[in-house]
């Protein structure tokens, strides 16, 4: 019995099953010589030093930020493409031929580096000698969020992210999946953007984080947030829930941001 991806096209499921069944009668595979050639090429590549940028944007940012906060929330614009960081001002509105993936990543890493430096400089200037979990200077109510990158902003988008342990990783929170009691400073710096917790709270309420982001255009946005949990700083209610996930990485679905004002 062949597998159906999901019932997202019920009306053509039967035809699809028949085609799939036929399709899978002829499944050419790679030649062993090709496998060896490719793996050899990659091994040779491995001997070469990394030539690009500062490496994994998340790794460095997270290593610093996790020391400050419970976790790092990573946002990715819906149109930005999986595995790639947000491209400020471009999501969903540019039309053009697809670019070379390698070049895109190189460009992205350059932008990430600039953002990281700006975010870290901002963090350092805002939290001298203060503990990350409290006492950090709070933004005044109504303060606009910092823009993802330079330039004016026209719209501010807000959404609330409920952080929970998606233990069964189905993208939905079940009753037995606890909200994360996240302790953090008032501002989380994330890759390529900033997230502000609710103004006036030095410690966000359990499981709730207000996403507030300015953008230079008013295209509707949504994000796929995730949080990287740091063992040293985070205490699980039920640590066993993390056993199957060595990276302690969970994803939390899509947060739609509702427009708050111009």
């Amino acid at each position, binding site marked *: 019995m062949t597998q159906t991806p999901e019932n997202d096209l019920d009306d053509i499921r039967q*035809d699809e099953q028949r085609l*799939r069944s036929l399709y899978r009668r*002829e499944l050419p595979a*790679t030649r062993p010589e090709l496998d060896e050639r*490719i793996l050899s090429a990659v091994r040779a590549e491995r001997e070469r030093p990394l030539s690009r940028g500062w490496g994994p944007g998340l790794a460095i940012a997270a290593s610093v930020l996790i020391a400050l906060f419970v976790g790092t929330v990573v946002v990715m614009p819906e149109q930005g493409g999986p595995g790639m960081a947000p491209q400020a001002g471009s999501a969903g509105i540019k039309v053009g031929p697809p670019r070379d993936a390698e070049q895109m990543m190189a460009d992205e890493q350059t932008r990430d580096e600039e953002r990281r430096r700006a975010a870290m400089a901002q963090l350092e200037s805002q939290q001298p000698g203060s503990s990350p979990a409290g006492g950090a200077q709070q933004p005044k109510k109504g303060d606009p969020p910092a823009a993802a990158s330079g330039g004016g902003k026209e719209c501010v988008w807000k959404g609330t992210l409920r952080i929970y342990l998606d233990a069964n990783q189905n993208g939905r929170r079940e009753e037995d999946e606890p909200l994360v009691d996240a302790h953090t400073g008032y501002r989380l710096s994330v890759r390529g953007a900033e997230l502000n917790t609710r103004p006036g709270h030095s410690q966000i309420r359990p499981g709730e984080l207000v996403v507030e982001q300015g953008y230079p255009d008013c295209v509707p946005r949504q994000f796929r947030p995730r949080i990287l949990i740091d063992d040293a700083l985070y205490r699980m209610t039920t640590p066993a829930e993390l056993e199957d996930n060595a*990276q302690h990485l969970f994803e939390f679905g899509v947060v*739609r941001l509702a427009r708050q004002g111009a």
Partner: protein
Amino acid sequence: MGSIELEAGAVSSSDDEVLMLACAKGEMGAFETLYRRHKDPLYRFLLRNCRSQPVAEELLQDVWLKLYRNRAGYYVGAKFTTYLYQIARTRLIDHYRTNPPDAIPVDDLLPSQEPVVGDRPEESVAVADETRRLHIAIARLPLEQREVILLRLEKDMSAEEIAQVVKVSINTVKSRLRYAIAKLKQEMA
């Protein structure tokens, strides 16, 4: 206060993503596991699209090299397979710039035409013929329909995952799938 909306069926971490993160840290074994796990479906995706074994092999090597070269920039923003097939698709499009798909004879794509031997030779031949006609029909599909039907048949991707790979809306993917399947049915009739 903004609203909350968590969509069901969101991407989740899996072994592939963990392996890719390990690969990013320099673990060659993790890369090799990923390679062996995904090489054949990816090869077929490229082969069915470009219709040439030597070209598909070349593209396959390019894709894996790109994946490895960019390992440092990887983070789990979506399923690994979505990420992998995005790179593959981008490489295919680059290839099409110098080798327009319409210029490639359909016959180049045909699967092996060796007779299928079994307990019921007549039935096997009939099935082989049907399979052959399916691959010809797939090869004749417009590019945008061909790529979505291949991702669907080869990788069992959901419409949402395909939408992420080809960077169009889910509804567009569904529409292309419907058109593709209708055409394939017609050709196979």
